[in-house]
């Protein structure tokens, strides 16, 4: 239990440094990337490309093991179907991302430097998750 938390702390710290170093925490850069019909800023292609190339290369070796180092088994989604929920949810997320330039990771990272925008965005993010829970339960 304790070792799982230490491993997660290390992973989270690496993730956070990666977000800050790459420029992902700067919503101006994110919106510049999404603005392909305006002043397109290709920087984020390097971030997403670097991250995805790394996981595509290394996940194969990790998953070839029967189980992770500190836990009994890999906890992976085995959902396969593409339904309206997946497409609708992704579409709604994209609209929110395109408005302000924050996805969840960079928004949380902003809390670390007490970014005034993160202090507005993150509570709204939590409220949105809560809203989904309420709607979904009925």
């Amino acid at each position, binding site marked *: 239990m304790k070792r799982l938390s230490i491993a997660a702390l290390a992973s989270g710290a690496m993730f956070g440094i990666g977000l800050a170093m790459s420029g992902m925490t700067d919503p101006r850069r994110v919106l510049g990337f999404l603005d392909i019909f305006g002043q397109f800023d290709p920087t984020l292609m390097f971030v997403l490309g670097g*991250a995805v190339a790394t996981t595509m290369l290394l996940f194969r070796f990790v998953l070839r093991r029967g189980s992770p180092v500190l836990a009994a088994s890999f906890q992976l989604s085995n959902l396969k179907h593409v339904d309206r929920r997946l497409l609708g949810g992704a579409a709604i997320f994209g609209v929110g991302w395109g408005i302000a330039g924050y996805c969840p990771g960079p928004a949380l990272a902003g809390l670390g430097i007490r970014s005034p925008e993160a202090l507005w965005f993150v509570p709204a993010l939590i409220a*949105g998750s809560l809203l989904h829970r309420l709607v979904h339960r009925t």
Partner: protein
Amino acid sequence: MSSTWLLALAGGVLIGLAATLLLWLNGRVAGISGILNGVLFPHSRDVAWRGAFLLGLIAAAGIYMAFVPRAPQPRADFPRAGLVVAGLLVGFGTRMGNGCTSGHGVCGIGRLSVRSLIAVCTFMATAVATTFAVRHLWS
């Protein structure tokens, strides 16, 4: 290649390594929206590692932005109403679609999930369309 692009690439690789570390050691997917949700609405004993992950992310990113020279600084002039509307949509959408940029993007594509690839194409498309609408049609 400019130093901005090199830092972007290095940061991206670091994000990929962080996700690999979590999968290798804990067997878990580094999806931020899912991890946050697991802390907000705990229904298992997995709150501790999720909290530790978020703590590490927030603290390390904060320290980097505060102390590393020329680190990108947060924006501060976006309209609050826009932040609230965007936050609500991102929170609702990522729960409905079961993932965000990290879960579907970095991890899902990393394990060659078609479902995640379709989700990424969908949110990229609506994000580009929304940015276009806000920047070029609205104003």
